[in-house]
């Protein structure tokens, strides 16, 4: 007997490590203040709250704003040698409703979800930063 509500929740919950094109306006701290509100940048899903309605997303940027363990440095599309490196600012993780997130477009640089290796690196970096 299937638990349809659970299945529905699983299918419509974004994966950890999935990439989304998010407008700058969702961040209202210094990171986005110097950008036009509607500018898009990549965001990475860090975790899903137990209620499964809130996701925590981390903003990505092409500029190395901060250095140290709380930055996840990655070339998103590894098949493209010309692809630029992105820096995900782990410390700026913020809650975002799942419904709003899935109404945005998924993917960045032709990649929807980090591959296994990238995901493992990402989780490792999260551990370094957040313990």
């Amino acid at each position, binding site marked *: 007997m*299937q638990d349809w509500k659970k299945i529905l929740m699983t*299918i419509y919950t974004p*994966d950890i490590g999935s990439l989304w094109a998010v407008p700058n306006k969702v961040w209202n701290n210094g990171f986005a203040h110097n950008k036009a509100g509607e500018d898009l940048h990549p965001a990475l899903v860090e975790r899903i709250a137990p209620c499964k309605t809130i996701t925590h997303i981390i903003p990505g940027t092409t500029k190395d704003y901060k250095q140290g363990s709380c930055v996840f440095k990655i070339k998103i599309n590894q098949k493209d040698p010309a692809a630029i490196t992105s820096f995900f600012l782990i410390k700026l993780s913020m809650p975002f*409703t799942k419904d709003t997130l*899935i*109404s945005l477009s*998924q993917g960045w640089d032709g990649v929807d979800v980090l591959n296994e290796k990238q995901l493992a690196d990402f989780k490792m970096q999260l551990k370094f930063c957040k313990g």
Partner: protein
Amino acid sequence: MNRFNIVYINDLLNGKLSIEGYNHILSVVGYYTKLNQWPVSIIVPEKNRDSRWEKEDYEELIQQYFEWLLVKGKLNYVHKVPDSYRSYYFLQLLISFISDKISEYQKTTGVSYNAIKKITLEILEDRFRKKERDAKVFWSDGDVILEDMSVSQDLDECIRSLPRVVITEKIKHLKPHVKNCLLSIFEVYHFPIEQEALINSVYRLFDQSQYHTTEFHSQNSNVELEVDSASNYKVQVDSLVLNLSASDCQIFLSYLFVNDPPSLDSLASKFNLPKSSLHLKIASFKKKISTTYIPVNQDDGVLFLEKLHIALDKIANE
């Protein structure tokens, strides 16, 4: 006078309830009504929820309680309840009856601001931190640093996209829902919140929209809606299953449409595929589902997934 007397309960079960026994039950029910401050409007809908209980209202409550006991078959197995527990058993039945009435009442009127306020304050006192300033009380889920208020975000804007709690007949206890609302608010808003503003925000997270219309949708219109949705799903389901092989369908059925998905390792060896390809295949299909159809609510989503499951199952078994 806070327990049902077993003698009178047995008289009632034997159909020999005396006037004295009836008065006893009336007074016990009256005691619990006052103790729990049950609103009279759950029994007599014509009255306001703040109206006083009159003697006839208590009598009406008892009549409805007895009727409920019979209709729901609550007395069918009462002979199995030991005498020493019967009094407690009847009290639990009374509380169960009242929660049914409250849930019925909520279905037609929504939840009141005062009810939400009372529960919110209980939870706040229990597990959140507070600080007072200028005769105002501020609450936070961490340390209350009122200096933070100067850079605080717009609370309304922050909670605007939080999911609403739809009041259904299944909701009998509001406390867990109020608690979830509070946790969601503090999860998206990391500043101390003034008490009244916080209670207002919690109240607004309860979806009362259906109670603002004078009429409910008729049963027929719901059926029409369901038929409409079902026929609409065909387009989305067809596009999702287009070009899928039987093996693909088996993979999706075994991973996405089960309560506890197996590990990717075991699935990869079962279907003799590299784990990374399997991961990609499942992630792509999952994305395709969520972009092809965004359900309007939970029931709509379940209906849609059931149709998709049938279509996948059909191809998998061809």
